[in-house]
């Protein structure tokens, strides 16, 4: 009985160790997937902010708008200057993703 209890406790500990490793790996790989590359970024501001807010944020960060999305609080921006994502966060963006993830928000040809 005691042996089975210690065995199950050991198995739980092993699962926990593997879980921690897997969590770190998933966080790193997810970050790599969603961080903007090639200067393109999907910029998302707070949904309750006023319309046009996302345009202000992109312009403050020194980028230009490449395309709009179906949502008024998200847009695809471009800048060839390094540190574009960091500047977007500083300008007030709530979330900055890679530009290729824009399919999450239906693209439109205009704002």
């Amino acid at each position, binding site marked *: 009985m005691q042996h089975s209890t210690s065995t199950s406790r050991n198995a739980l*500990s*092993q*699962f926990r*160790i*593997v879980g*921690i*490793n*897997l969590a*770190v*790996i998933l*966080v*790193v*790989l997810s*970050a*790599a*997937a969603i*961080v*903007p*590359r*090639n200067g393109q970024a999907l910029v998302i501001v707070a949904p309750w902010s006023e319309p046009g807010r996302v345009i202000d944020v992109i312009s403050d960060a020194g980028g230009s708008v490449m395309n709009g999305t179906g949502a008024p609080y998200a847009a695809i921006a471009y800048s060839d200057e390094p540190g574009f*994502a960091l500047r977007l966060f500083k300008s007030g963006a709530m979330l900055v993703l*890679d530009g*290729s*993830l824009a399919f999450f928000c239906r693209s439109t040809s205009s704002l």
Partner: protein
Amino acid sequence: MNYMTSLRTRAAIAIVSLLWINLGMMFLRFLWGMEADPVIVLGGGAAIAAVATLTWWNDRTGTATQISTALAHAASVALLVYAFSGSPLQIDMHMYFFASLAICASWVNWQPILAFAGLTAVHHLVLFFVIPAAVFPGETDLSRVILHAGILILEAGALVALGHSLASAFAQSDEAMRNTEVANAQAKEMSQKAENAQQQNLGDAKRREAERADDAARQQFAIESIGRGLRQLAEGDLRFRLTDRFDETLEVLRSDFNSSMETLEQLVAELGSSARQMSEGSNGVCADAERISKRTEQQAVSLEETAAAIGRITENVQSASKRASEAGRLVDETTKNASVSEAIVSKAVNAMTEIEGSSRQIGQIITVIDEIAFQTNLLALNAGVEAARAGEAGKGFAVVAQEVRELAQRSAAAAKEINALIETSSTQVSSGVTLVNQTGESLRSIGEQVKNINDYIAKIVDTAREQASDISEINSAVVNMDQTTQQNTALVADTTKSIRNLATDAEGLLTKLAVFSVNERNTSRSASRTKPAAPASRPAAPAPKAVRHSGGGAAVAVAQEWDEF
């Protein structure tokens, strides 16, 4: 520590070191210039390597360490591929997935291989659909993913099989080592035991030599004593006993010999006594069996006579049955005749009734005649009166009128007499009708009684038939008893012959038993055992002396009992 653990301990160092080498390669790529975010690549790679290293530090070869380092390698290679985004070498970096998988196989365990393959498959599929540029350069399609997946599955399967074979080989090697050690220990122990046993054998051999000489002397004495006893036994002397004590180990033999002789002597004595009693009893039984044979023959004769008498009774009963049937038939006819008489009586009653009616009509006619006679008398009177008036001329007429008057009076008297006769006749007819009715009633009651008699006679006939059947069965039973009695007679004759043979055999047995000499007390003991009601005043048995068996006279009492039977 077995070979497997040693191998895994050394492999773990290489696997963990390779994680940090991968981080160095990422740094070189950063220096070269890359599109990917350096913070993600370098920071993420360092974090993955650090967590895996801590895991290894905590448990060098545990299953969790193996799986975690495999996952870390898959993630590290994915980061390298990510770091080569935009480079034409990105697709070539995919080869590093397969190389790293092979390196993880050095854990010699299927779990890290599957963990690596699983994470790689999920990574490729998700990124192919979400961000293809993170895994493949330029335009790509699903066929490339499928190709990479096929190669991955093939390599993972081969590595799992290889690991399994290696693990089996290591397990067999460890088992062989353990067996060798155990065998060495056992061989050493056996050698020690053999040496001890050899030293003990030398001391035991000397001691056994001395004991063997003593044993030989004692055995010689015992053999000679037993040989003497057996010679006495061969001569038929069952009184011989071994009195000198043997060695402790052979003392059992002496006591067994003595007890065997005792038992044999007692057995022969009892056998002689039984044979004697059997001989005497057989003679008595033989005489009684002859008497039984004669009585059985008499019984057979009586049974034959009984059977004949029963046969006659059967014939009588059958004759009575036939007569009763005849009586039944006669009673049936009587019943039919009684029914016919009843009809005749009914007809007679009807005839009487008709006679009564005719008498009544005659009475009525007579009454009419009487009235005519009265009117005629009146007319004759009137004619006489007229004739008297006529005088002389009417004298003749007066005579005629007188004659007519007399005739009328005589007619009236005759009519009265007839009336009286008719009344008498009517009364007698009524009484006749009553009598005839009573006769009919009587005939009906006679008919019913005859029916009852007929029923009784039918029952008597049935009973007579059943009696005849029962008597027939009794007759057959008596015949069977007769046959059985005759067979019994033959059997009793055979039994008598057998008993004679038995008596002869018992005499022969006594003659043969006379060869043995036994003590007299054994003879008397066996006799008293078969006859427990021996007289109490019998003198005590004298000192044992040799007796020889011979025929005795104990058959008198048995013969008397059979006479009473």
